[in-house]
């Protein structure tokens, strides 16, 4: 089991948001504060691990024809659990994420991993895949949140480090536009461009290495 390689894939070369371009609705919609991003990232990671494990354990029982429906029911079950747990224990997060918690059901990342990985691999490997992909998703969200929160409200860690976070820019400077929907599109566009650039550089380096050999 090469955890390191899977982690690198999840974070960079095969990042669910930045490379596979999945699950963009939630990525753009909720990344206005660090609190939202971390909460959403952790919820998705937990659901992803659980659904990957269950689907991988049941992969020989589920008939091929109705597999997508079966996956969706498994995922919806876990999403409902997380939704109820958040409502009970972290109502503030549940309020600010709103409809996007139940919408994790149709988040393409989870169904995508079920179809592409969990349905073909063992339980342990699927759990690790869920964890690394979840970390990749959370990392993408956190980066988006930090950028948008810094430019849009001039703070860092709103909700995580105290209710208002740490103020970096004076209150008059921030561009409100960045935490509006427009900012979501622009920030994600730039981040994806950056990832593509890094991935191309990495690929070039590998090729050079092989050429030297």
């Amino acid at each position, binding site marked *: 089991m090469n955890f390191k390689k899977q982690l690198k894939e999840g974070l960079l070369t095969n990042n669910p948001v930045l490379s596979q*371009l*999945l699950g*963009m*609705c*939630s990525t*753009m*919609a909720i990344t206005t504060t660090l609190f939202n991003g971390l909460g959403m990232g952790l919820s998705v990671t937990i659901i992803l691990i659980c659904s990957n494990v269950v689907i991988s354990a049941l992969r020989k029982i589920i008939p091929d024809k109705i597999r997508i*429906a079966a996956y*969706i*029911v498994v995922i*919806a*079950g876990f*999403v*409902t659990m997380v*939704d*109820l747990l958040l409502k009970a224990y972290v109502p503030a997060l549940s309020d600010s994420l*709103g*409809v996007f918690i*139940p*919408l994790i*059901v*149709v*988040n*393409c990342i989870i*169904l995508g991993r079920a179809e592409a990985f969990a349905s073909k691999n063992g339980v342990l490997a699927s759990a690790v895949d869920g964890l690394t992909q979840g970390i990749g998703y959370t990392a993408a969200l956190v980066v988006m949140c930090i950028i948008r929160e810094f430019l849009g409200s001039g703070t860092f860690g709103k909700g995580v480090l105290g209710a208002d976070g740490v103020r970096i820019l004076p209150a008059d400077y921030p561009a409100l*536009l960045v935490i*509006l*929907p*427009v*900012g*979501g*599109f*622009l920030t*994600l*566009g*730039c981040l*994806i*461009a*950056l990832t*593509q*650039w890094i991935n*191309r550089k990495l690929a070039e380096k590998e090729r050079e290495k092989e050429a030297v050999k």
Partner: protein
Amino acid sequence: MSTFVALFTISLNAILAENFILVKFLGICPFMGVSKKTDTAFGMGLAVIFVMGLASAATWAVNEFLLVRLNLEYMQTVVFILVIAALVQFVEMFLQKALPALYQALGIYLPLITTNCAVLGVALLNIQNGYTFIESVIYGVTGGVGFTLAIVLFSSVRERLEDCDCPKAFKGFPLALIAAGLLALSFLGFSGFKVFG
């Protein structure tokens, strides 16, 4: 009269001020995936209007007459996604038999719609906003109209992006996102837009 005003406000909001794609971020996947050509975008838009209207009606009825009566509201997410999946399948079979011409036009988009978050989103928002049956259906249909408006506008922008000169890293997807951002910026102009005080 007042119901008419309420319905009108709901529709206008769903199409412009709270556009499902550009303001609420629901349904980004098909928005990015099927917007390379204007006619496919239009086809997808029509399919979404159709399914969102039907899904609003079906989920409202299921929630009101089944889940609320049995105190099972916490099952909403699971039940709604199943209702939507079954509905889409049913619509597909019905169109194939009854209206083959329409099926030819919409057929390939229908399976994609099951996992479109705009459809599940509209079902959940209807319940959250406490809409009546008529309001729900109107919200669903006009939400779909807003989706179509955004995707058709965007596809005509995107056709031009294909052969523009830009940095290599921005080619393709990132540039499309930036263009979508500019489109969202123009829709921002409708926010806080009220017709009747």
